[in-house]
């Protein structure tokens, strides 16, 4: 009986905690949007963050997608061979990458790397009272810290996903030409004929939602950090886990929603 009471208390605390965090994050999201379109625009800071968040993630995102493109081509070749459909490898790989793997894997890679960086940076600022200092000096931490990171993410992540899409398709093309005996030009023209603009667009639309969520989770956890260096560590870990869960859950709902458009 006592165990049940303790269990229900735990669940209750967990739910209350989740709702409280969710509400605070929604408020932060609202403030971020409101401040995103008000002067002064911190362009210098946005560019700095693009360099920091985007450029630093290029190599890892492109490598991930190149490898994924190659693996997908090999696996689909095995599967499609059973139905005599090897010629469709290019289209299937193209569709999978544009609609799903390009945007999701880039976001996962960037999400892991960037969200932990943001949470650690803002967390350190919070525990050394630098965020309080921003407010005490008459400025707004959302405007100064969250908005430039949000803009940077909104520019960097879709661009990165676009490059990742291309590199993923090239990965599929490379392995198809080396292992499956498909001519690269045929592979590419088949891909271009087989996929549609909507496949690319729906994929890229997802990255805006993923990027928004990643920055929001990271900034929220970072700015609320307390308890010194240990707190920074906890905020960072929590952020990576939450960002990844967010990406995968949001992906399902977005995929379902975007199917309306084709």
């Amino acid at each position: 009986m006592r165990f049940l009471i303790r269990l229900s208390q735990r669940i209750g605390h967990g739910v209350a905690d989740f709702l409280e965090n969710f509400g605070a994050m929604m408020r932060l999201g609202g403030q971020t949007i409101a401040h995103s379109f008000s002067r002064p625009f911190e362009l210098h800071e946005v560019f700095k963050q693009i360099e920091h968040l985007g450029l630093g993630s290029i190599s890892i995102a492109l490598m991930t997608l190149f490898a994924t493109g190659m693996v997908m081509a090999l696996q689909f070749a095995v599967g499609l061979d059973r139905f005599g459909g090897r010629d469709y490898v290019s289209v299937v790989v193209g569709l999978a990458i544009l609609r799903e793997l390009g945007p999701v894997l880039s976001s996962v890679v960037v999400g892991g790397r960037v969200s932990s960086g943001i949470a650690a940076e803002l967390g350190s600022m919070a525990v050394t009272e630098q965020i309080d200092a921003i407010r005490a000096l008459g400025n707004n931490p959302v405007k100064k810290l969250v908005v430039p990171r949000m803009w940077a993410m909104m520019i960097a992540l879709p661009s990165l996903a676009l490059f990742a899409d291309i590199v993923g398709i090239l990965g599929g093309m490379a392995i198809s030409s080396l292992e499956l005996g498909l001519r690269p030009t045929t592979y590419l023209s088949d891909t271009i004929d087989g996929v549609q603009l909507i496949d690319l667009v729906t994929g890229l639309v997802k990255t805006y939602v993923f990027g928004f969520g990643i920055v929001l989770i990271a900034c929220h956890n970072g700015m609320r950090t307390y308890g010194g260096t240990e707190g920074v560590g906890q905020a960072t870990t929590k952020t990576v886990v939450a960002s990844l869960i967010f990406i995968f859950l949001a992906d399902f709902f977005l995929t379902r929603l975007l199917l309306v458009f084709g």
Partner: protein
Amino acid sequence: MSETGAGQIVVRYEHVAKAFGPKVIYQDVSLEVRRGENMVIMGGSGTGKSVMLKCLIGLMQPTAGKIFYGDREVTAMDEAELIDVRRNIAYVFQQAALFDSMTVFENIAYPLRTHLKLSEEELAARVELNLDRVNLPGVGDLMPSQLSGGMRKRIGLARAIALEPEIILWDEPTTGLDPSNTKRISELILKMQSELKVTSLIVTHDMTSAMMVADRVALLHGKRIEKVLPKADIQKEPRGTLLRDFIEGNLDI
């Protein structure tokens, strides 16, 4: 205290209470601070001294009660209204809270860039003036990580006074400093009072510094302001009273 308005009440805490969840920090804090004076708030660790300062500029909200700056109620203001209050009430943080990613120059220029439209030359002149005020001329190009603890605190002060505030809030200004730096900071507090005519609220448990800078001393104990006394009267307090016991280290906190 010869200038106009000296001695009038500039800050007033009225029955302020603060709790973090179930933990009550204080229940009934009332205090009046006069223009131009150095008010030292003493109390043991965890009695909410810093929280008192943070509530005054809206960095934290009290659970109950009101706080006034002049005749304006700070506790009723929203974030936009508080900006004006924060321009006039500067906060010197315990660990200085300098922005790690910026040079000393950019740290001091930060509030100036935020609130004033100055040319780069004017900005440089204002930054250098404030570095001079804290006796650290020419360190603008250094990063905060290159500074010693005492220097960080002085740069934190230079940044805080860049906008020529009316009131300075000092959060444990001498904690963790060696005796010569402690003396230097205490002298700066007195210099701010005599040269810039600012009012200071100083939160500390460093008795040497408190006795050096205070005009009046308030003791925060038992979740409220227990006593407020002019410095001169402290030594007259009979043995066995709270304030005397606190000063002599006999108060169990």
